[in-house]
C-alpha cells in the first residue's frame, strides 16, 4: 500500500523536479564554465542538497518499485508474504542506494 503510493509520489516528483533539474543541468553544461558554476553553487546550497538527495532517493525508490511492478505484471509475487517482503525490500534498497551515492560525496561538500 505504502510502496504503491510512494511509486506515484516519487514518479510525480521525478517528472517535475527531476526533469527540471536534468534540463537545467544540461543547459548549464551547454552554457559554459560560468553558467555551470552557478548551477553547482545552487546544487551545493543546503536547499539544493536536500533537493538533490531527495531526488536521488525518489529515483531509486521509483526504480525499485517499478521493477516490482514489472515482476507483478508477469503474474509473479502476489503471495502475501512474498509481496510484503518485496515491498519492504524496495524501501531498504532505495535508502541503501541513496547512501551509497551520497556518502562518498560528503568529502566534496566540505
Amino acid at each position, binding site marked *: 500500500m505504502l510502496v504503491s503510493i510512494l511509486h*506515484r509520489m516519487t*514518479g*510525480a516528483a*521525478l*517528472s517535475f523536479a527531476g*526533469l*527540471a533539474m*536534468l*534540463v537545467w543541468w*544540461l*543547459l*548549464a*553544461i*551547454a*552554457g*559554459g*564554465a560560468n553558467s*555551470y*558554476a552557478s548551477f553547482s553553487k545552487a546544487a551545493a546550497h543546503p536547499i539544493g542538497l536536500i533537493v538533490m538527495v531527495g531526488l536521488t532517493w525518489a*529515483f531509486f525508490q521509483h*526504480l525499485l518499485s*517499478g*521493477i516490482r511492478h*514489472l515482476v507483478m*505484471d508477469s503474474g509473479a509475487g502476489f503471495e502475501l508474504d512474498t509481496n510484503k517482503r518485496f515491498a519492504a525490500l524496495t524501501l531498504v534498497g532505495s535508502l541503501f542506494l541513496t547512501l551509497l*551515492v551520497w556518502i562518498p560525496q560528503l568529502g566534496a561538500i566540505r
Partner: protein
Amino acid sequence: MSLGQSATPLGKVTGLGSAHHGGEHWLSERVTSAALLLLGAWLIASLLFLPSRDQQTLAEWLSAPSGAVPMALLVIAAFKHALQGIKVVVDDYVHVEGNRFAANTLLLFLAIGGASLALFALGRIAFGGAA
C-alpha cells in the same frame, strides 16, 4: 477502432478503461521504463567513471557520440515516460472531461517544451563549440 463496433471480445476491451485507448498506453509505459532502466544505469555508471565532474569534462563527455546519443535517448524516454505516468494520475483524479483534456494537453506541451530544451542544450554542447 471506434467504441461499440468490436467483433471480438479482445476488440471490446480495446478502447475501454479510463484512458480510452486500451492497452497501448499501458505497454508503452513499460517499454519506456525498460529503456530508462538501461539508460539510467548507463548515466550512473558514466558519472561514476568520469575522471572529474567539472564543466569541461562533462561537455567533452556529452560531445562524443557515445555520450550525446544515449543522453538524447534518455531525455526522450524520460519525458515520454513522465508524460505517460502523469497522464495516469490525471485520468484517475480529474473527472470532468474538459478539464482532463486541458490538463493532459498542458502537460503534453510542457513535456515537448522541456524535452526540446534539453535536446537543444545537447546540440549546443555537441555542435556549438562554445565550451
